[in-house]
């Protein structure tokens, strides 16, 4: 799933380490999330949206898979 984590993080002047600390995850997790290699659980997605002061839909771009 594509996301805007990197864009929103940079907009708020946060480093990957800052975001990792705010989410209580490792920096490696933030890197994986930003690259879209790892899809977070609903709880982590909610925490990410909360840190950025926005909604999950604004952070994660859901694309329906072609049937």
């Amino acid at each position: 799933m594509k996301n805007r984590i990197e864009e929103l993080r940079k907009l708020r002047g946060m480093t990957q380490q800052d975001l990792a600390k705010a989410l209580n995850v490792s920096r490696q997790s933030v890197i994986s999330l930003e690259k879209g290699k790892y899809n977070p659980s609903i709880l982590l997605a909610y925490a990410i949206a909360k840190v950025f002061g926005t909604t999950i839909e604004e952070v994660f771009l859901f694309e329906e898979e072609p049937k």
Partner: protein
Amino acid sequence: MSTKRRFVLYVIYAILGVALITVANFVNMSQSLQTYLASFGTALLAINVIKMLRFRAILADQEKAREYDTRMTEERTVFLVRRARSIVFYVSLMVQLLLAVVFQLLDQPVISQVFCYLTAAQGIGYFIVWRYLDSKY
């Protein structure tokens, strides 16, 4: 599991290693069993002493300890651990089936059967656990 609890676990394993070495050296038993227990105990002791030394460095630094704790308990780590276990389980099944065929071709039906039974037992175990989890969640 928290960092401190993990450290305690390593200490317990190391003590278990020492106990195995002690039993192997002071209790009367066959030579093969003695060698087996002594080597198992030595390996257990060595691995856990190394882990404890690594941990001592981590625990000395609060920030490092927090980072380590986060790394060990975060959801991505849990996901990776589960995925790694799943892949290893699948590969093991395939290797066992392959070995069953190889031993059958080498005219070793008993060994081949052992691999077949082992694979079947694992398959049944998987099915039972899957059904249990399916009813639970």
